[in-house]
């Protein structure tokens, strides 16, 4: 029996529109492009990084931006032994909650390390920038253990 002809058609899923990230998320992403990290003050004065548009408790619209440090400490982390295809590394790495200097709320990002034993809650880490920054959260390529000053 001959093989039936299989019809194929290339298909690319795409969106036919663009959207603005707005004055809060947009400001944060634009600052990342310029290799700076900004947070925003919540209703209770706590500095939230990355910034939120509205306070999760009071629902107040937030607008007071604050630049924070590019170093911080690990609040918690997950050690990924077997990275998934979508993950930012193809070797073991960590996801971490990182409280940057000057921030009161941790942000979630990846941390490059050789082994789980190198990391600990409270460990100091610093941001590593991507070679080319484009205004995405991934402009911070990862964090790595901070060099002691």
């Amino acid at each position, binding site marked *: 029996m001959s093989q039936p002809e299989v019809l194929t058609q290339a298909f690319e899923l795409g969106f036919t529109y663009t959207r603005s990230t707005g004055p809060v998320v947009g400001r944060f992403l634009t600052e990342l492009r310029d290799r700076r990290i900004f947070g925003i003050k919540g209703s209770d004065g706590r500095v*939230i990084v990355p910034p939120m548009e509205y306070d999760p408790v009071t629902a107040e619209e937030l607008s007071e931006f604050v630049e924070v440090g590019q170093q911080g400490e690990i609040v918690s982390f*997950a*050690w990924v032994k077997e990275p*998934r295809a979508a993950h930012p590394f193809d070797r073991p790495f960590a996801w971490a909650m990182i409280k940057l200097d000057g921030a009161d709320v941790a942000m979630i990002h990846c941390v490059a390390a050789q082994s789980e034993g190198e990391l600990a809650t409270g460990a100091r880490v610093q941001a590593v920038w991507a070679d080319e920054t484009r205004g995405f*959260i991934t402009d911070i390529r990862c964090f790595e253990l901070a060099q002691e000053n």
Partner: protein
Amino acid sequence: MQQIAIVGYQQSDCVSWAGATNEVELIMPVLRRVFDQVGLANAQDVDFVCSGSCDYLQGAAFAFVAGVDALGAVPPIKESHVEMDAAWALYESMLKIRMGHAKSALIYGFGKSSPGELPIVLSQQLDPYYLAPQWVDTISLAAMQARLMLDQGLITERDMAEVVARSRGNALNNPHAQLSGDIAVDELLAQETYVSPLRKSDCPPVSDGASAVIICTVEQAIEWGVPYAIISGIDHRIESHNLAMRDLTDSVSTRQAAQGAGMADGSVDVAELYAPFSHQEIILTRALGLGENTQVNPSGGVLAGNLMMASGLSRIGELFNRITSGEARRGIAHATSGPCLQHNLVTVVESA
């Protein structure tokens, strides 16, 4: 207020891979069984139908519409859907009945998670600018939550393994469970970590399947002449999508939902908790203040089989089974949605 009863519950087996069986084929046998349980012919015999599912699992917009094929919806029926666990479809159905727009409702939830990479699929429900582009998987988020608890001395790895051992043991009595058996805590602790500090056994299996519940007014249940249990309260609450602004070692929204549902108005003989990760069962039992008088997850819970979009509904169904069998007089069912127990629903069910 109109009292609402549960009269039927059926669930498919939780299987790791349903093969070529599609979603409609997963749903149909469960619907047939729940109709038979109540003595109904088909979906024409209820006033309202509501389903819960997630189009991301199928990877197609409006994929849930295909699920309606399982109903044979001709002539047309009154139907709705939530892009959530079907426990929330039950919530919507209760509102429909309380508003007087229906006397009975069929609720079903389904999920075929095996074709995709579930923890990565679920990463796309996170913040679209800060987290989704990083593809942070849900197991890693739960692992960070567990480490917070371990670091603060709120739990030990042994506590977590004890939850797993009890769940697998209880699941021996659940014919639909995917993972069951007598397994020693030390044997679990001897296993390597997976996404550290979690071991694979601390995580729910990926399961394919469906479940269904029928609810109605108490008058309707009496007219149908079937055993029933009464839903005396239901409430749900959500917390911030910013994980770092929540106290991940507690579940404030679960406690609020339990208060709203009136959990404290009587004894809690049984609690069926939707705790996808072992440490989350401990968070929930503490947030709810459950003590020795409450049997937790006699079904084995979702560590024994986790039907995305149906497991929350199944918790309510399992509670219904305990109450109509006479094993319990009153209990609660909990459902969760989102990362690290973000959104929680509590249902209180009592004997008639």
